[in-house]
């Protein structure tokens, strides 16, 4: 089985996000990049499938200042190859990233083999132009299913049985023939932990490949006219004081609502 995990690092929203001087993008000085949860789950799902069915897992990540750490960790967890894609283009949108990834995959690996499964995070917090996985599927002409929270493979390895989430914890079961692209929401198990010592060992013996891809024009490129902080319609009444005082006030509010 040939699995490709595609990672699109995103600005960490836990950090304070600031708008750049152009008023149309985030201030790159204060952004710290991280992997979205769904990207972490995409790798975990690939590793679970590899454990059952063998084959190779290649992680391909778009360049971001912090992505090397994530790629070393992926290798330590059991990925076979780690590739960093360099675009040399400011603020690429998802459509451009998908075009670059598709170009990389087809120019280095050729047409997708019948045992290929591409797994990407189902969604990301900066998906203004939409999600990476369906763009990629369209360019590669492959079937796609998103919001996936479970993948098993048929005995002959040609078909994936895929669970897609709907609302209210309802799930749909689908069959998807390989090669295919899946947008993973969550893996069947939480992403595995790997000791730092193992990551350090991999950093000594392994390698991160770097591939430059030429910029590609896409018709879906959106031009952001303005980026700004939302004006909250309201704000919570903030309770202040020592933890003891705050707990007492909270208990008072709950009592006032007839809950105690």
């Amino acid at each position, binding site marked *: 089985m040939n699995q490709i995990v595609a990672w699109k690092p995103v600005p960490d929203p836990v950090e304070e996000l600031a*708008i750049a001087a152009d008023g149309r993008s985030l201030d790159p000085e204060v952004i710290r990049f991280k992997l979205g949860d769904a990207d972490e789950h995409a790798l975990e799902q690939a590793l679970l499938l590899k454990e059952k069915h063998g084959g190779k897992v290649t992680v391909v990540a778009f360049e971001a200042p912090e992505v090397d750490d994530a790629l070393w960790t992926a290798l330590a967890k059991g990925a076979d190859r780690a590739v960093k894609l360099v675009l040399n283009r400011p603020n690429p949108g998802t459509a451009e990233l998908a075009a670059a990834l598709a170009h990389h995959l087809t120019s280095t690996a050729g047409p997708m083999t019948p045992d290929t499964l591409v797994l990407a995070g189902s969604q990301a917090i900066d998906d203004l132009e939409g999600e990476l996985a369906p763009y990629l599927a369209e360019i590669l002409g492959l079937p796609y299913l998103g919001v996936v929270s479970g993948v098993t493979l048929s005995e002959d390895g040609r078909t994936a049985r895929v669970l897609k989430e709907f609302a209210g914890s309802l799930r749909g079961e689908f069959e998807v023939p390989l090669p295919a692209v899946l947008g993973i929401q969550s893996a069947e198990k939480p992403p595995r932990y790997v000791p730092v010592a193992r990551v350090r060992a991999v950093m000594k013996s392994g390698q991160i490949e770097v591939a430059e891809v030429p910029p590609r024009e896409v018709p879906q490129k959106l031009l952001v006219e303005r980026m700004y902080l939302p004006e909250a319609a309201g704000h919570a009444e903030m309770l202040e004081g020592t933890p003891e005082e705050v707990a007492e006030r909270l208990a008072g509010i709950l009592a006032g609502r007839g809950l105690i």
Partner: protein
Amino acid sequence: MSAGILVLVEHLKGAVADITFEMLGAARQLAQASQAPVHAVLVGKDVAGLAAQLGAADAVIVVEDAAAELPSTELVLAVLRQLLEQKQAGLVLLGGTNVSFGLGVRLAARAKLPFVNFCKGLRWDNRALVCTSQLFGGKILSDVRLPDGRGVISIYPGSFPADAGKSDKTPPVERLAAPAVQSKVVFRQLLEPAAGDVDITKQRVLVGVGRGIQSRDHVQLAEELAAALGGAVCASRPVIDQGWLPLSRQVGKSGLTVKPRVYLALGISGAPEHWEGMQNSECIIAINTDPRAPIFDGAHFGVVGDVLELLPLLTEKVKARKT
């Protein structure tokens, strides 16, 4: 007259989803200024009966597909592409939900239209359509201009009033034969969630825990508070994904929608996917270490602090008041 607007009707298990009425309301508002016709597009098995609810549209286009309980994405894409041409439509509104997820990107790619995700606001500026989207978990807004007002737009649930998309009028219905499509993805069945030990939609108080609870062991602290209050513990996605609580306790986009009298959001940042599932709680109390967490913008009461420190104290106070 401007190019028409297509609204893809979202329905699951025989019920029209609220997002459909939000989209119809948004489309009506756009149509008022542009004089464009609004077409509701209803695709699926035995769906014609749902058309009567769609009176806010100028016409309902019904495509019956007896093949499967869920229409294939390929069929929906083919119908929308056909209607973009036949109705000379320029704008397609889709629900930003798990049902319609991924459709927008593919329709945009095939119809060579721009796609705007996470849309919370729409306004005309002369012939251009300005779309406001929320990004980075609701922390940033961005405005994108579609110069000719043409595109595919995914509407974030809860952004437009659903009432504006409801009407008692009986809409004209047009039937369209389902175009022949090949779909590699085959729908097999819907899997109902396993019944949990507790129905979180029926609780008067919910203690919701998020990433800030940090470990499985700490969930017990929330259980103790919930027990003291006669409620139950629920969670946001990261906690469920870790396996610390079962799926039946998940609140949000993929999980359940809850409306308790009090919702305690503990270590929950308030990402839009979670907010969607608990925003209509009567009273929301949020505790988070991050003073900028979006949850504080919508909560009624907020505390900047460590849930692990406050939880046992609060449980103690609640118990003390009961004795």
